């Protein structure tokens, strides 16, 4: 052959319509053959300007908005927002309300991690089996939500000062059933994936995130813990009485995709532990303090943070003594966790980029808000 074969890198858009972007998210990847040499995030396809809309509505009316930011963990988002308003207005929540909130938030973590683990396995190519198994378990939790709040996905269950309704009599047996049936499912997933040679080959050493990088990018949640950093808002800055419960923080070894996966699996075990304790010691009494519908918190600002399934979820509110917040800002964990995406994908292959994106566990509704 005369001359040399000319080759040049080309840009490939992974998304916005792509099976593995978990919504309408786009990675503008420059690839040289299979190798990714540059990756740029493009987001905003799902922008609904929630933060601006919230400035026109009263504090109570804003709760349904928070359902729709991270639609896979609406309970956690409700909780984060209500905590911020309670902090702003100085409202105390009765112990029963707090216990119910903890149970709901942990159930939500289970449901969300089911989705995360299943979708991640799907990204590595385990064709739908793990995700279907995870969905089977997630259904049971969504049934509990349906019984309690009337909705399965966008629950709108937390209220300022407590929760919307008291628990129904069916609630406890249903949760006990989850507590009984979940550990075998986690073991099943571990048996199917954690020790699988192909799964290990695809995820170990892929998307390695050094602890320095993880801290500098202000990551949180399983991403941070996967890199070996012991950090959990539930321990560091307890809310809703998390300090009463005995649970451990799982942390990874190398900060690769595999570690993030096993951290999520272990977190599900810890969540079950918390639910068990909260359910056994569920106090009686009122489940909500009465709060005026058109709440006018005193002038000031408040930031409340919780450990959502994806990491540190913060709500920042500024009040000007009107019934609507003057400023409503969300610190979405998915968005901030994404900031390390470029570091993790560049240098790997296209197949690795998908695995890394899956291991971040993004929810696009939360990124774009």
């Amino acid at each position: 052959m005369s001359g040399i074969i000319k080759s040049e890198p080309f840009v490939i858009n992974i998304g916005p319509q792509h099976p593995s972007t978990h919504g309408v998210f786009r990675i503008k990847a420059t690839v040289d053959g299979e190798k990714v040499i540059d990756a740029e995030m493009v987001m905003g396809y799902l922008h609904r300007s929630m933060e601006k809309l919230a400035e026109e509505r009263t504090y109570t009316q804003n709760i349904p908005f928070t359902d729709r930011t991270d639609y896979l963990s609406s309970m956690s988002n409700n909780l984060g927002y209500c905590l911020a308003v309670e902090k702003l207005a100085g409202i105390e929540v009765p112990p029963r309300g707090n216990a119910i909130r903890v149970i709901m938030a942990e159930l939500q973590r289970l449901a969300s991690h089911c989705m995360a683990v299943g979708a991640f396995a799907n990204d590595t190519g385990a064709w739908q089996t793990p995700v279907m198994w995870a969905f089977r378990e997630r259904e049971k939790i969504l049934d509990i939500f349906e019984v309690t709040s009337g909705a399965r996905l966008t629950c709108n269950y937390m209220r300022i000062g407590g929760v919307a309704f008291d628990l129904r009599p069916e609630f406890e047996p249903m949760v006990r059933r989850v507590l009984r049936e979940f550990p075998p499912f986690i073991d099943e997933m571990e048996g199917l994936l954690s020790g699988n040679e192909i799964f290990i080959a695809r995820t170990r050493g892929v998307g390695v995130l050094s602890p320095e990088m993880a801290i500098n990018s202000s990551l949180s949640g399983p991403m941070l813990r996967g890199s070996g950093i012991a950090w959990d808002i539930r321990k560091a800055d307890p809310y809703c009485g998390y300090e009463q419960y005995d649970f451990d923080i799982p942390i990874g070894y190398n900060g690769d995709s595999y570690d993030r996966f096993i951290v999520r699996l272990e977190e599900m075990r810890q969540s079950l532990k918390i639910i068990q304790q909260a359910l056994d010691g569920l106090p009686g009494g009122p489940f909500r303090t009465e709060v005026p519908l058109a709440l006018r918190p005193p002038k000031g600002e408040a930031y409340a943070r919780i450990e959502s399934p994806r990491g540190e979820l913060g709500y920042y509110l500024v009040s000007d003594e009107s019934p609507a917040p003057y400023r409503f800002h969300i610190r979405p964990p998915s968005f901030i966790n994404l900031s390390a995406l470029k570091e993790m994908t560049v240098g790997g292959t296209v197949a690795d980029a998908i695995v890394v994106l899956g291991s971040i566990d993004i929810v696009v509704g939360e990124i774009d808000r």
Partner: protein
Amino acid sequence: MTPFLVSDKWYDIRDLGNLSRAILEAADRILPFGVVYVLAAVLGFVASFLLFVLPSQLFVGVYGERRIIGRMQSRLGPNRVGPFGLLQPIADAIKLIQKEALTPTQADRAVMYVAPIIFVMPAVLLWAVIPFGENMVIADIPVSLLYFLAVSSLPVIATFMAGWSANNKYSLFGAMRIVSMAISYESPLVLALLGAVVVTGTISLSGMVAWADEFNIWMAFVQPLALVIYFICVSAELNRTPVDIAEAESEIVAGYLTEYSGMKWGLFYGMDIGYALAASGFAVTVFLGGWTFFGLEQWVPGWLIFIAKTHLFYFLFIWTRGTLPRLRADQLMAFAWKFLLPLGVFNLLIVSTERMLWAEQDYAKGLIYLFALINIVLSGALVYAWARFNGYRPERTPTRPRLVKQVGGYIPIEERP
């Protein structure tokens, strides 16, 4: 006890080859010279492809696969169209035929149109050499194994054409992957089959079945390693799940199929199953005794045994699809070159030595069972030794994360709280 039918007459259903021979001989008497060959080809095509492959594709490949995978994934699978959803593949086919087959404006129209056709043809041709029974083989050529290997590597060209012509980057990715991987999995595949050739001393598929019948042993026992290598490599060739790299759904959407729709896509999809069936039939013929079953073929029609074995082998493809994640292209290539190829060479070395010893003993019948036993042990030892030699260690680090009670900063890996 004698079989219920002992004749080789045309009505002996144990071997439909007798019937077709009777038909062809009768036709030869009245038709002009040469026409009978065309008739034979048509008869063979109808018998093998239309009566076996197509229904198998529809009811095992599409319906059965979806149903079984549905069960594995704790869901029902198709169960609405017809009894138990059995008519689902037909409904799918009607939908695909009705659907518009889009062609992108920038695509190379001619190549994109031709690619599915080129993809289909080898799938039909493959069945020409696979014996369904003693006389039930369309073309009993003496080099049928070689023929099968040659024809089964043709689809790579069609998939490359499909990926290149669509003018889509994902399609190009798929095409690039399939072309770059082709050689890496085909060499161990051929080496593995060479082991079977050395043992039997023939490259005719009918000859291999006859060998299995004569010595009452399946090649799978004499050459277990070859069967494993064959299965892995043929999965890669067929784009089946552990190595469906060229059409990796989660990575490159659908690979070379991204821009195809309607029946053009349907041809690729259907024939993928057709190739998997052909590969199963080939594996059954070479490794699992073909249409024989230790004398059972005297009573039960051999072609039924063959069909049952083929479908059982096809189940392995379904099973892996429902279980395993996907390898990366470079991982598959490394695995094929560094692991499967050397193992194939070692296997060939062992089996050649055995063959030599066997020839010295005038092909004593009992010796092959001893060889089978030795080979089963040696294969396991070989895989283990070669893995150790390559520095591969089974997973030692715990698959559970570390647990800490208190928050704090970074905890190094060595530190175990």
